[in-house]
Protein backbone atom coordinates (compact mmCIF):
# COMPACT_ATOMS: atom_id res chain seq x y z
CA UNK A 1 0.00 0.00 0.00
CA UNK A 2 1.46 3.31 -1.12
CA UNK A 3 0.26 6.90 -0.97
CA UNK A 4 -0.09 6.89 -4.75
CA UNK A 5 -2.40 3.88 -4.61
CA UNK A 6 -4.56 5.47 -1.93
CA UNK A 7 -4.81 8.72 -3.87
CA UNK A 8 -5.70 6.97 -7.14
CA UNK A 9 -8.52 5.07 -5.41
CA UNK A 10 -9.67 8.32 -3.79
CA UNK A 11 -9.60 10.02 -7.20
CA UNK A 12 -11.72 7.22 -8.64
CA UNK A 13 -14.29 7.60 -5.85
CA UNK A 14 -14.35 11.37 -6.28
CA UNK A 15 -14.80 11.10 -10.04
CA UNK A 16 -17.62 8.58 -9.80
CA UNK A 17 -19.33 10.87 -7.29
CA UNK A 18 -18.84 13.84 -9.59
CA UNK A 19 -20.51 11.92 -12.41
CA UNK A 20 -23.50 11.23 -10.15
CA UNK A 21 -23.74 14.78 -8.86
CA UNK A 22 -23.78 16.18 -12.41
CA UNK A 23 -25.91 13.59 -14.17
CA UNK A 24 -28.63 12.57 -11.73
CA UNK A 25 -32.04 14.19 -11.80
CA UNK A 26 -33.36 13.11 -8.41
CA UNK A 27 -32.20 15.32 -5.54
CA UNK A 28 -31.45 12.37 -3.28
CA UNK A 29 -29.34 10.75 -6.01
CA UNK A 30 -27.43 14.02 -6.42
CA UNK A 31 -26.77 13.88 -2.68
CA UNK A 32 -25.45 10.35 -3.13
CA UNK A 33 -22.99 11.68 -5.70
CA UNK A 34 -21.83 14.38 -3.28
CA UNK A 35 -21.44 11.75 -0.57
CA UNK A 36 -19.24 9.65 -2.83
CA UNK A 37 -17.08 12.68 -3.57
CA UNK A 38 -16.62 13.29 0.14
CA UNK A 39 -15.91 9.57 0.57
CA UNK A 40 -12.96 10.05 -1.76
CA UNK A 41 -11.86 13.15 0.16
CA UNK A 42 -11.91 11.17 3.42
CA UNK A 43 -9.77 8.41 1.92
CA UNK A 44 -7.29 10.90 0.43
CA UNK A 45 -7.05 12.80 3.73
CA UNK A 46 -6.46 9.53 5.59
CA UNK A 47 -3.70 8.66 3.13
CA UNK A 48 -2.04 12.05 3.54
CA UNK A 49 -2.30 11.71 7.31
CA UNK A 50 -0.82 8.21 7.41
CA UNK A 51 2.00 8.75 4.95
CA UNK A 52 2.98 12.39 5.41
CA UNK A 53 1.95 13.63 8.84
CA UNK A 54 0.90 10.87 11.24
CA UNK A 55 0.51 13.02 14.32
CA UNK A 56 -2.70 12.97 16.37
CA UNK A 57 -3.94 16.44 15.45
CA UNK A 58 -4.14 15.53 11.77
CA UNK A 59 -7.19 13.41 12.46
CA UNK A 60 -9.20 16.54 13.22
CA UNK A 61 -9.33 17.35 9.49
CA UNK A 62 -11.03 14.00 8.86
CA UNK A 63 -13.52 14.72 11.60
CA UNK A 64 -14.34 18.06 9.97
CA UNK A 65 -14.91 16.38 6.59
CA UNK A 66 -17.25 13.85 8.21
CA UNK A 67 -19.08 16.69 9.98
CA UNK A 68 -19.43 18.51 6.65
CA UNK A 69 -20.87 15.33 5.17
CA UNK A 70 -23.55 15.12 7.86
CA UNK A 71 -24.46 18.78 7.43
CA UNK A 72 -24.76 18.29 3.68
CA UNK A 73 -27.03 15.32 4.18
CA UNK A 74 -29.23 17.10 6.72
CA UNK A 75 -29.68 20.16 4.50
CA UNK A 76 -30.17 17.99 1.42
CA UNK A 77 -32.94 16.01 3.08
CA UNK A 78 -34.58 19.25 4.24
CA UNK A 79 -34.44 20.75 0.74
CA UNK A 80 -35.77 17.51 -0.76
CA UNK A 81 -38.67 17.61 1.69
CA UNK A 82 -39.39 21.26 0.86
CA UNK A 83 -39.24 20.58 -2.89
CA UNK A 84 -41.54 17.62 -2.59
CA UNK A 85 -43.98 19.56 -0.42
CA UNK A 86 -44.12 22.65 -2.60
CA UNK A 87 -43.91 21.07 -6.07
CA UNK A 88 -44.80 17.44 -5.58
CA UNK A 89 -41.52 16.36 -7.09
CA UNK A 90 -37.95 15.79 -6.05
CA UNK A 91 -36.37 16.31 -9.45
CA UNK A 92 -33.66 18.89 -9.94
CA UNK A 93 -35.16 19.90 -13.28
CA UNK A 94 -38.23 21.11 -11.40
CA UNK A 95 -36.15 23.54 -9.35
CA UNK A 96 -34.39 25.65 -11.96
CA UNK A 97 -36.09 28.95 -11.12
CA UNK A 98 -32.84 30.76 -10.51
CA UNK A 99 -31.50 29.82 -13.96
CA UNK A 100 -34.17 31.88 -15.74
Amino acid at each position, binding site marked *: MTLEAVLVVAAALFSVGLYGA*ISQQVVVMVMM*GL*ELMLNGVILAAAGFW*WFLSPDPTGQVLLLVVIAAMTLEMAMGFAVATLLHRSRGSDMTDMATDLSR
Partner: protein
Amino acid sequence: MLESVVFWVLAVLAVASGVAVFRVDSMARATYALAVSFVAVGLALLLVDLHYIGVITVLMMVMEMAVMAVYMVMFMGMNPALMPMSMVHDNRAAIAAAVTTFVVLAGGALLVPWPSRREPDPGTVAGTAQALGEAIMGSKMLVMLTVSPAMVATIVAGVVLAGARGRYDRLGDDLDRRPADDPQPGGVGR
Protein backbone atom coordinates in the same frame (compact mmCIF):
# COMPACT_ATOMS: atom_id res chain seq x y z
CA MET B 1 1.85 -7.81 2.05
CA LEU B 2 -1.43 -8.88 3.66
CA GLU B 3 -2.18 -5.23 4.35
CA SER B 4 -1.78 -4.40 0.67
CA VAL B 5 -4.03 -7.26 -0.41
CA VAL B 6 -6.73 -6.20 2.04
CA PHE B 7 -6.42 -2.58 0.92
CA TRP B 8 -6.83 -3.45 -2.75
CA VAL B 9 -9.79 -5.69 -2.06
CA LEU B 10 -11.44 -2.86 -0.13
CA ALA B 11 -10.45 -0.33 -2.79
CA VAL B 12 -12.00 -2.37 -5.60
CA LEU B 13 -15.10 -2.97 -3.49
CA ALA B 14 -15.43 0.75 -2.68
CA VAL B 15 -15.07 1.91 -6.29
CA ALA B 16 -17.19 -0.90 -7.76
CA SER B 17 -20.03 -0.29 -5.34
CA GLY B 18 -19.65 3.46 -5.97
CA VAL B 19 -20.16 2.84 -9.68
CA ALA B 20 -23.05 0.51 -8.88
CA VAL B 21 -24.85 3.39 -7.14
CA PHE B 22 -25.55 4.92 -10.54
CA ARG B 23 -25.89 1.70 -12.49
CA VAL B 24 -28.36 -0.42 -10.53
CA ASP B 25 -32.04 -0.50 -11.39
CA SER B 26 -33.53 0.74 -8.16
CA MET B 27 -32.90 3.44 -5.62
CA ALA B 28 -32.97 0.97 -2.75
CA ARG B 29 -30.14 -0.99 -4.32
CA ALA B 30 -28.29 2.27 -5.02
CA THR B 31 -28.56 3.13 -1.33
CA TYR B 32 -27.19 -0.24 -0.28
CA ALA B 33 -24.36 0.07 -2.82
CA LEU B 34 -23.38 3.45 -1.37
CA ALA B 35 -23.44 1.96 2.13
CA VAL B 36 -21.08 -0.82 0.96
CA SER B 37 -18.73 1.79 -0.52
CA PHE B 38 -18.63 3.69 2.77
CA VAL B 39 -18.08 0.51 4.79
CA ALA B 40 -15.16 -0.42 2.52
CA VAL B 41 -13.58 3.01 2.98
CA GLY B 42 -14.23 2.85 6.73
CA LEU B 43 -12.43 -0.50 6.91
CA ALA B 44 -9.58 0.94 4.82
CA LEU B 45 -9.23 3.69 7.44
CA LEU B 46 -8.75 1.00 10.07
CA LEU B 47 -5.75 -0.24 8.05
CA VAL B 48 -3.99 3.09 8.61
CA ASP B 49 -4.63 3.11 12.36
CA LEU B 50 -7.54 5.56 12.16
CA HIS B 51 -9.58 3.41 14.50
CA TYR B 52 -12.06 5.96 15.78
CA ILE B 53 -12.59 7.70 12.42
CA GLY B 54 -12.96 4.35 10.66
CA VAL B 55 -15.56 3.07 13.09
CA ILE B 56 -17.66 6.25 13.08
CA THR B 57 -17.50 6.33 9.28
CA VAL B 58 -18.97 2.83 9.13
CA LEU B 59 -21.59 3.39 11.85
CA MET B 60 -22.66 6.84 10.69
CA MET B 61 -22.89 6.01 7.02
CA VAL B 62 -24.84 2.80 7.54
CA MET B 63 -27.39 4.77 9.59
CA GLU B 64 -27.41 7.57 7.04
CA MET B 65 -28.06 5.19 4.20
CA ALA B 66 -30.94 3.67 6.17
CA VAL B 67 -32.45 7.16 6.46
CA MET B 68 -31.82 7.70 2.77
CA ALA B 69 -33.65 4.49 1.89
CA VAL B 70 -36.65 5.75 3.87
CA TYR B 71 -36.54 9.00 1.90
CA MET B 72 -36.47 7.08 -1.33
CA VAL B 73 -39.62 5.23 -0.38
CA MET B 74 -41.29 8.44 0.83
CA PHE B 75 -40.59 10.55 -2.22
CA MET B 76 -40.65 8.11 -5.06
CA GLY B 77 -44.11 6.82 -4.21
CA MET B 78 -43.29 3.34 -5.38
CA ASN B 79 -41.54 0.24 -4.26
CA PRO B 80 -37.97 1.27 -4.96
CA ALA B 81 -36.73 -2.31 -4.83
CA LEU B 82 -38.93 -3.36 -7.72
CA MET B 83 -39.23 -0.31 -9.94
CA PRO B 84 -36.38 0.08 -12.43
CA MET B 85 -35.33 3.68 -12.94
CA SER B 86 -32.89 5.69 -14.96
CA MET B 87 -33.15 9.41 -14.47
CA VAL B 88 -30.12 11.21 -15.83
CA HIS B 89 -29.45 14.29 -17.88
CA ASP B 90 -26.32 15.39 -19.73
CA ASN B 91 -24.96 11.89 -19.40
CA ARG B 92 -22.13 12.35 -21.89
CA ALA B 93 -21.01 15.66 -20.42
CA ALA B 94 -21.08 14.13 -16.93
CA ILE B 95 -18.98 11.14 -18.05
CA ALA B 96 -16.51 13.47 -19.77
CA ALA B 97 -16.22 15.64 -16.64
CA ALA B 98 -15.75 12.59 -14.40
CA VAL B 99 -13.09 11.01 -16.65
CA THR B 100 -11.23 14.32 -16.99
CA THR B 101 -11.29 14.81 -13.23
CA PHE B 102 -10.00 11.30 -12.66
CA VAL B 103 -7.17 11.70 -15.18
CA VAL B 104 -6.10 15.01 -13.64
CA LEU B 105 -6.26 13.80 -10.03
CA ALA B 106 -4.73 10.38 -10.66
CA GLY B 107 -2.06 11.93 -12.88
CA GLY B 108 -1.17 14.35 -10.12
CA ALA B 109 -1.08 11.54 -7.55
CA LEU B 110 1.24 9.46 -9.70
CA LEU B 111 3.52 12.22 -10.99
CA VAL B 112 4.17 14.14 -7.77
CA PRO B 113 7.34 12.88 -6.05
CA TRP B 114 5.82 12.20 -2.64
CA PRO B 115 8.24 11.90 0.27
CA SER B 116 8.65 8.53 1.95
CA ARG B 117 6.46 7.81 4.93
CA ARG B 118 7.36 9.71 8.08
CA GLU B 119 7.19 7.56 11.17
CA PRO B 120 5.24 9.09 14.07
CA ASP B 121 7.27 10.49 16.91
CA PRO B 122 8.03 7.84 19.52
CA GLY B 123 5.84 8.13 22.57
CA THR B 124 2.89 9.67 20.76
CA VAL B 125 -0.42 7.89 20.65
CA ALA B 126 -1.16 8.71 17.02
CA GLY B 127 -4.24 7.12 15.59
CA THR B 128 -6.04 6.45 18.81
CA ALA B 129 -9.31 7.86 20.00
CA GLN B 130 -7.51 9.26 23.02
CA ALA B 131 -5.17 11.27 20.79
CA LEU B 132 -8.07 12.65 18.79
CA GLY B 133 -9.96 13.55 21.94
CA GLU B 134 -6.96 15.37 23.35
CA ALA B 135 -6.52 17.26 20.07
CA ILE B 136 -10.18 18.30 19.98
CA MET B 137 -10.20 19.43 23.60
CA GLY B 138 -6.77 21.03 23.38
CA SER B 139 -4.93 22.58 20.48
CA LYS B 140 -7.74 22.06 17.93
CA MET B 141 -10.64 23.23 20.07
CA LEU B 142 -11.25 26.22 17.80
CA VAL B 143 -12.08 23.83 14.95
CA MET B 144 -14.78 22.13 16.98
CA LEU B 145 -16.01 25.52 18.27
CA THR B 146 -16.60 26.40 14.62
CA VAL B 147 -18.20 23.10 13.69
CA SER B 148 -20.62 23.17 16.63
CA PRO B 149 -22.52 26.37 15.68
CA ALA B 150 -22.59 25.16 12.08
CA MET B 151 -24.35 22.03 13.28
CA VAL B 152 -26.82 24.05 15.35
CA ALA B 153 -27.50 26.30 12.36
CA THR B 154 -28.10 23.19 10.26
CA ILE B 155 -30.62 21.86 12.75
CA VAL B 156 -32.51 25.17 12.74
CA ALA B 157 -32.35 25.55 8.95
CA GLY B 158 -33.42 21.94 8.45
CA VAL B 159 -36.46 22.37 10.65
CA VAL B 160 -37.38 25.67 8.97
CA LEU B 161 -37.05 24.24 5.47
CA ALA B 162 -38.79 20.97 6.15
CA GLY B 163 -41.56 22.42 8.34
CA ALA B 164 -45.06 22.07 6.91
CA ARG B 165 -46.18 25.56 7.93
CA GLY B 166 -44.09 28.68 7.90
CA ARG B 167 -44.84 32.23 9.08
CA TYR B 168 -46.43 33.17 5.75
CA ASP B 169 -48.91 30.33 6.17
CA ARG B 170 -49.75 31.59 9.64
CA LEU B 171 -49.69 35.37 9.14
CA GLY B 172 -50.43 35.81 5.42
CA ASP B 173 -48.29 37.19 2.59
CA ASP B 174 -47.88 40.56 4.33
CA LEU B 175 -47.35 39.00 7.75
CA ASP B 176 -50.22 41.13 9.13
CA ARG B 177 -52.95 38.57 9.74
CA ARG B 178 -54.07 38.66 13.38
CA PRO B 179 -54.77 36.31 14.94
CA ALA B 180 -52.58 33.85 13.15
CA ASP B 181 -54.27 31.16 11.11
CA ASP B 182 -53.32 28.11 13.13
CA PRO B 183 -55.00 24.72 12.94
CA GLN B 184 -54.95 24.66 16.73
CA PRO B 185 -55.27 28.20 18.14
CA GLY B 186 -53.35 28.88 21.29
CA GLY B 187 -52.06 31.64 23.53
CA VAL B 188 -53.84 34.43 25.35
CA GLY B 189 -57.34 35.23 24.08
CA ARG B 190 -57.96 31.99 22.22
